[in-house]
């Protein structure tokens, strides 16, 4: 039952590869070098980006990202803080971009006089950005 040297070499190679793979999968990724059975320190929270600069979309259909902080903005059945600047009637004063005209359309493609209820909850698609650098 003496293993052939070829099998031994293969086994050694396999062992080396798997350990290096294992080491890699444990020490990289979002969780960092913390072992799987432990909880690492929480990452520092980053502030929201708060500018007025438009950001280039990554693909044509991407909902435009919000370049400013929206902390404390109320969006519910009573009111919509976003619309106090981005509504059609408000942009002359606010100089903010108007919500897209597709947002006035109901699901049958009919244009309504005001923003369609299914488009009312802005942050369902449009999100503010944090100043974090991707890892």
């Amino acid at each position, binding site marked *: 039952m003496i293993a052939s040297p070829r099998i031994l070499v293969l086994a050694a190679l396999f062992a080396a590869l798997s350990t290096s793979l294992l080491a890699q999968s444990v020490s990289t990724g979002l969780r960092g070098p913390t072992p799987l059975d432990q909880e690492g320190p929480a990452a520092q929270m980053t502030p929201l980006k708060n*500018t007025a600069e438009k950001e280039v979309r990554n693909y044509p259909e991407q909902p435009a990202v919000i370049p*400013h902080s929206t902390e404390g903005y109320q969006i519910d059945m009573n009111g919509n*803080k976003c619309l106090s600047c981005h509504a059609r009637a408000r942009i002359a004063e606010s100089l903010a971009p108007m919500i897209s005209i597709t947002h006035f359309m109901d699901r049958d493609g009919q244009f309504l006089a005001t923003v369609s209820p299914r488009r009312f909850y802005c942050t369902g698609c449009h999100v503010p950005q944090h100043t974090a650098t991707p890892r």
Partner: protein
Amino acid sequence: MSVTGETKPTKIAQVRAFVVDLWYVLIRPSSVFGLGVLVLAGFVAGVIFWGGFNTALEITNTEKFCTGCHEMKDNVFAELKSTIHFSNRSGVRASCPDCHVPHNWTDKIARKMQASKEVWGHLFGTIDTRDKFRDHRKELALHEWARFKANDSLECRNCHSAQSMDITKQSPRASVAHQRFLFTGEKTCIDCHKGIAHQLPDMRGVPGC
């Protein structure tokens, strides 16, 4: 019959006699106390009364007093807690009277007299449930907005002065908006900053929102 018939007028007559006596004592110059004693006693009594009045007034001007009623504690105060006027990076916070009671005396007394309606509302349970509060929220908010609009957002400006505002440290949006609307006097704080400390009511029909 005769007993009750006699006692009733006597009681009234007693009170009447006491009031008349008191009146004569008050309108005649003192024959017992010296003028100095009277003046000094009056001065001391005045100090005690005025001090007591202002102390009582200050007690009604604390957050503890305001949130003593569950209407305030469970609705507006609970909503305040998540906003920047309660919790923020510097730990400086606004309490109820900072925004809702004018700081100079005459306006404060005027506001305190208006606030007697809130005591009435508490006693008669006008907003003693969350649903009732929601039903009245717009009316209450409109009152406060009108007050802020009328006094040029005085309570905001007690802390936030346009002179001390460094627009280079603001976000570009805020900087532009403050230069265009605040510094020119075209708008006052409350025109744009509604719903920053409490949730907004139904905003349909509210201009600019």
